[in-house]
């Protein structure tokens, strides 16, 4: 499993092999690299980028949720980096302070702190913590004992005008805090530039995700998931997204579908290192054509409005709309799912719930009803954590889901053939009458 700590060691070895003086050669090699190879070393590139930023006195700001407007951090001249933990190995350390019956993402993130094993967390000048679930919120209190922290409070009532006003005030407070802490002025001009950059990145990633709408998509869900970065808007990453699009959009040869079942994945985020369920789905006859979750399309479906008079208002509005299960009710998630089903045409749905993720777990009942009764799509909920012990049991359920999809497909075809025969018989009878 990939963890920043291990990647750091690999990077150090690589650096010894190719000394820093040969930058032009390195650059040309980078240009010839396939985008997939490039993102295989994503953590290592992010570390290089963060270390260089730190050396030129740019602050590093850790974030742990898609609700945090990265644009404001970027406009302050700082580097936002995602700190979400995806490694089972750090959980034991976390459990020294945290209960074992807690979501593995929270525990892994905190375990990195205990082990001092996440270089980005060690480098961070500030952590922006979001109140997007109670487990995280209370974990942040422990984290704040040793780290400078700003808590961004997300109100929860989806359709409440006051809630949005409060959220906007929180977004503004983040701006004020960044200005105070890093002694900078965040100008509207800088905000607009950051918004343009982030919109550009979102648009590139959205186009990549859209490739999966094809009848025979050119890449697997796992490959697509790997095409993203812990730090947004690194220029080389953006270039690689473009390379990937050029390569995949122009590709003439056949795609990867090969009779595999089209799957939509929804639920909790699958952060770097915690992609096991996605791998199980794709190793057992599935092709994940759409990931609705926070590590998939959820945060990139909408851009920030570039035309409005107040960039803070525009930012607050975009992020407020994210359909997270912490919201109540969370009707926009259903709306988004309905839209995605139309566009990506999945044959079934897999919902992933991290163990002890209360909000996604409870909401799964409504999601299941929506898919099975509303859309007529087979649905499977998988509740698990980062340990591997239940992989075989998950695989059985995934295989059974695909067997159901295939039997339903066969029945539809049979029904279709029967309907065609009936129409033919009717028209033959009509012809006989005519003659």
């Amino acid at each position, binding site marked *: 499993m990939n963890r920043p700590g291990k990647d750091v060691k690999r990077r150090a070895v690589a650096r010894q092999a190719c000394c820093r003086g040969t930058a032009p050669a390195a650059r040309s090699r980078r240009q010839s690299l396939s985008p997939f190879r490039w993102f295989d070393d994503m953590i290592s590139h992010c570390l290089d980028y963060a270390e260089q930023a730190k050396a030129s006195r740019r602050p590093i700001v850790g974030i742990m949720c898609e609700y945090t407007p990265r644009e404001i951090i970027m406009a302050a001249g700082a580097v936002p980096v995602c700190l979400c933990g995806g490694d089972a190995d750090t959980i034991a350390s976390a459990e020294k302070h945290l209960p074992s019956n807690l979501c593995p993402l929270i525990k892994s993130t905190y375990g990195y702190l205990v082990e001092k094993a996440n270089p980005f967390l060690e480098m961070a000048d500030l952590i922006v913590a979001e109140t997007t679930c109670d487990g995280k919120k209370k974990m942040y209190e422990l984290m704040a004992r040793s780290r400078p922290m700003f808590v961004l409070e997300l109100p929860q009532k989806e359709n409440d005008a006051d809630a949005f006003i409060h959220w906007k005030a929180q977004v503004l407070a983040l701006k004020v805090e960044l200005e105070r802490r890093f002694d900078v002025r965040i100008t509207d001009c800088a905000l607009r530039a950051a918004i343009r950059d982030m919109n550009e990145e979102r648009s590139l990633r959205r186009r990549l995700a859209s490739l999966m709408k094809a009848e025979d998509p050119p890449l697997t869900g796992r490959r697509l998931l790997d095409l993203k970065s812990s730090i947004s808007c690194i220029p080389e990453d953006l270039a690689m997204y473009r390379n990937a699009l050029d390569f995949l959009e122009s590709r003439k040869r056949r795609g990867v579908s090969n009779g595999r079942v089209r799957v939509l994945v929804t639920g909790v985020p699958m952060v770097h290192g915690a992609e096991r369920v996605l791998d199980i789905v794709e190793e057992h006859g599935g092709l994940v054509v759409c990931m609705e979750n926070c590590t998939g399309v959820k945060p990139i479906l909408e851009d920030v409005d570039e035309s409005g008079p107040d960039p803070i208002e525009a930012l607050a509005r975009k992020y407020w709309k994210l359909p997270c299960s912490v919201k109540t009710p969370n009707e926009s998630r259903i709306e988004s799912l309905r839209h995605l089903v139309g566009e990506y045409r999945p044959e079934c749905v897999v919902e992933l719930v991290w163990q002890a993720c209360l909000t996604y777990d409870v909401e799964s009942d409504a999601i299941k009803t929506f898919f099975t009764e509303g859309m007529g799509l087979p*649905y499977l909920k998988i509740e698990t954590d980062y340990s591997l012990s239940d992989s075989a049991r998950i695989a*059985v*359920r995934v295989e059974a889901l695909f067997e*159901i999809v295939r039997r339903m497909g066969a029945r539809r075809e049979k029904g279709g053939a029967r309907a065609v025969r009936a129409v033919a018989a009717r028209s033959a009878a009509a012809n006989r009458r005519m003659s």
Partner: protein
Amino acid sequence: MICCGIDVGSRTVKVVLFNSRTGKIVASGIRDQGADQEALAARLFDSVLKKRALRRRDVSGVVATGYGRQICPFADTTVTEITCQAKGVLRLAPRAMTVIDIGGQDAKLLRLDRDGVVRDFAMNDRCAAGTGRFLEVVAARLGVGLSELDAMASRSRKPSVINSTCVVFAESEITGLLAAGVAARDIAAGVRASLASRASRMAGRDVEDPVVFTGGVALLPGMAAALGAALGHSVLVAPQPQMTCALGAALCAAGL
């Protein structure tokens, strides 16, 4: 045409030979699981063939199912126990709408539609709570066998309440009850009710009749009634409830 289904479960391996021309089961066999699952499955396969003086080349297709479905080199393909269980049950009870299967280490619930397609299913995930294993641990704690545990439970007039479904927690809960002087038969009845209530929670609200009960736990005479009481529906025990999944695999092998 002889087809074979082999169900490599956590506690036992089952083999069913099915004649697709006559639509009848030709022979079947069951063995307790061991460490060398592959050899055990092969030996059972051969011994069932021998009952009818058949050889492996007389069998036109073999489908393996169950947790060990990948360890049968003589199988042509594998199908999950969800699909096989549904097929096997529908062969014996064509109108079945709900299947509850409680085996050695897992419990499943299948909901079928009118055409016999699995509409939805639920399974226990990581732990063996609410499975045959749970009963085995309790029986061992009370110093009796599984059938005796069931018979004891049926003699109880005042079943105790067992709150824990986790095997480990339940064991310490039972230790506490024994220390408090609760009769073993009341504990046995409490355990049986707790298992049934867990299965009924898995079933949720919409349970459609007829409900068919399969798996090794269905062999215990009092279990179906306990399950029926928890579900609020009458529960039919499948004939040879341990063999239905292997039968379904044989039907898959026959392309039925």
